[in-house]
């Protein structure tokens, strides 16, 4: 007789062992290690909630302290590898295999561990790609998650940083896995329920509040005039040109400059209500002036941002909030709307090649992808039309309009030279060298050239939709690459011809006066100005306060 309930049985065996450390669902922090040793078995797939922002840091440290002779060969499946404790799991031999999507600050440490053979790398994913695999071949046996508070029944309130939690719990709890939450506090009554208690097995009040990194705060004081010029080019040459209403912004300074120019330059161009009304966006503080000036209809967020809680709670017409008033974010949902319901992604990158492939790889670091590859990709399953989407599709095609699909606008903004005069335009991406060194089957590319529709630099806009051949595309890219070697290697005649066709547009072609490209044009010059715009509701993290 086949046993069809082996997983459910296994779960029960582990719960029976673990229950001696619990009082109901509650487990004290002193018993946390014993609990993990009771529910985790060698070879398990474990998700240690490491999101883009929120970290189950207490549980990570506990897991990194278990006895490796007892628990080893774990397969870690989680979005973010960003804490020292995440690396310690591999250094100590507790974990061996890794499937992840983003590493940020630990990029160099991951590269070292990979080289030393301490990490067996499955793959580097985008967020929703990894989430998808949670439901098909990387389902966690155990999920260690983070929430703000719990009640005695295991119901969880995640606060504004809900992020990946519902997705992780869905995959684990409904496939006979075990879910353990670290919380800041246990309360009688939750402000709202983000995760129902019957999907949570154990709750541990951690010794400190979970860690959240402010990732989306850009100080307006650091926006340069070159970035302001690029922002003007983008607003006039792309947002206005295509009438882009639904969009996602990356996290760099050029897009922060755009946010700060909407209520000034955008207003002057008469674009209010015509562009940038609906957003898939983390709560960027630099968007506050545009929101307060009535530009923005609605924002759905992947995660939250430190200091923005009170502001968002007071702007529930704009943000998604619970009935308790606080923000509800959800990375899975927001990535999905970025794919299927945004007409444009615009973001910065570090390096771009002659075909328009872009990469944020720097030598010796494996930084991962996060969400940009999905935001910056055209979803071929999309079927609803908008003017922006149809116009982009038709520009790229010479076929009959009646059967031409639309295109998402995918815009890369970059200054021609990066830090220390490193050229941003290259003949060969550094990621190819990285792939050779670490024997990766696939060189990491953030956004493939065939998805990129426009590149914006201080020199102008290259519209790749209008290019009809690889050599044309190469000259369009060289034609805005400034004084980099790639830029100086342009065929001047070909570039002028592209300019006459509108493939390349310079500031003067768009009627942009370089005298306007000054910091006076920013709606806020300092973080303090953002606080003023927010009516005192925005509370900047301490590292951004200088008053």
């Amino acid at each position, binding site marked *: 007789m086949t046993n069809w309930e082996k997983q459910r049985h296994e779960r029960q065996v582990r719960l029976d062992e673990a229950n001696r450390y619990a009082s109901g669902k509650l487990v004290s922090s002193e018993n946390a290690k014993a609990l993990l040793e009771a529910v985790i078995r060698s070879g398990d797939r474990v998700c240690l909630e490491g999101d883009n922002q929120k970290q189950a840091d207490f549980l990570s440290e506990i897991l990194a302290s278990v006895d490796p002779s007892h628990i080893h060969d774990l397969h870690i499946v989680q979005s973010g590898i960003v804490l020292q404790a995440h690396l310690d799991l591999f250094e100590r031999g507790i974990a061996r295999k890794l499937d992840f999507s983003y590493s940020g600050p630990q990029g160099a440490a991951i590269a070292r561990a990979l080289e030393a053979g301490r990490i067996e790398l499955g793959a580097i994913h985008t967020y929703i790609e990894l989430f998808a695999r949670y439901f098909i071949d990387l389902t966690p046996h155990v999920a260690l998650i983070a929430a703000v508070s719990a009640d005695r029944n295991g119901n969880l309130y995640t606060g504004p940083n809900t992020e990946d939690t519902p997705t992780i719990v869905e995959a684990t709890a409904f496939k006979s896995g075990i879910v353990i939450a670290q919380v800041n506090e246990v309360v009688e009554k939750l402000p709202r329920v983000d995760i129902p208690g019957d999907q949570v097995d154990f709750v541990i009040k951690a010794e400190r509040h979970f860690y959240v990194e402010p990732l989306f705060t850009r100080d307006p004081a650091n926006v340069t005039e*070159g970035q302001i010029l690029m922002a003007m080019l983008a607003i006039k040459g792309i947002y206005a040109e295509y009438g882009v209403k639904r969009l996602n912004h990356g996290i760099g300074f050029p897009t922060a400059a755009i946010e700060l120019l909407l209520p000034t330059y955008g207003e002057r161009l008469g674009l209010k209500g015509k562009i940038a009304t609906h957003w898939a966006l983390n709560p960027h503080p630099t968007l506050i002036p545009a929101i307060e000036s009535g530009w923005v209809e609605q924002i759905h967020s992947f995660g939250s941002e430190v200091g923005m809680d009170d502001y968002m709670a007071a702007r529930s017409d704009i943000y998604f909030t619970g009935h308790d008033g606080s923000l509800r974010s959800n990375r899975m949902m927001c990535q999905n709307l970025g794919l299927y319901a945004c007409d444009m992604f615009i973001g910065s990158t570090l390096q771009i090649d002659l075909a328009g492939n872009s990469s944020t790889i720097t030598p010796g670091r494996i930084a991962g992808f996060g969400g940009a590859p999905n935001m910056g990709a055209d979803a071929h399953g999309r079927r609803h039309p908008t003017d922006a989407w149809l116009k982009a599709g038709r520009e790229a095609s010479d076929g009959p309009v009646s059967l031409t699909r639309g295109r998402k606008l995918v815009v890369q903004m970059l200054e*021609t030279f990066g830090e220390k005069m490193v050229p941003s335009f290259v003949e060969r991406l550094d990621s190819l060298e990285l792939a050779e060194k670490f024997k990766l089957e696939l060189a990491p590319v953030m956004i493939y050239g065939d998805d990129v529709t426009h590149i914006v630099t201080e020199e102008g806009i290259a519209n790749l939709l209008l290019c009809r051949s690889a050599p044309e595309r190469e000259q369009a890219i060289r034609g805005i690459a400034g004084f980099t070697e790639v830029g100086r290697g342009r065929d001047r005649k070909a570039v002028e011809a592209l300019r006459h066709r509108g493939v390349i547009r310079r500031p003067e072609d768009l009627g942009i006066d370089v005298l306007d490209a000054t910091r006076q044009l920013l709606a806020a010059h300092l973080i303090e100005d953002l606080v003023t715009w927010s009516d005192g509701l925005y509370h900047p993290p301490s590292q951004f306060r200088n008053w």
Partner: protein
Amino acid sequence: METFSVQGTTASRAPGNRLQAITGVNASGNLEVLVERVLPDNECSVEVATAVAGFRDLWQAVIAAFFERSAPGGLRFSINDGGARPETVTLRLMQSARLMEVDQ
């Protein structure tokens, strides 16, 4: 400190009546430009004083492209450079040429 000068010729006189303008700041990664309407109508020049030596070839390319783009006949530009990147130099030069067109 490295100093040098780049000369150019243009077809016509830069528009406007302003005689002098100054823009930018001499700070790290930035530059200050003084423009004076002191040359014959079909000549232009840029005098560079830069804190970062060894990029003369790049300066020449940036300035030649600027002469072509802005046609600043009759103008002499003096740059105090604090290590600005080429695109910042281009933007400042174009801003300073534009300043000579507008009334004070």
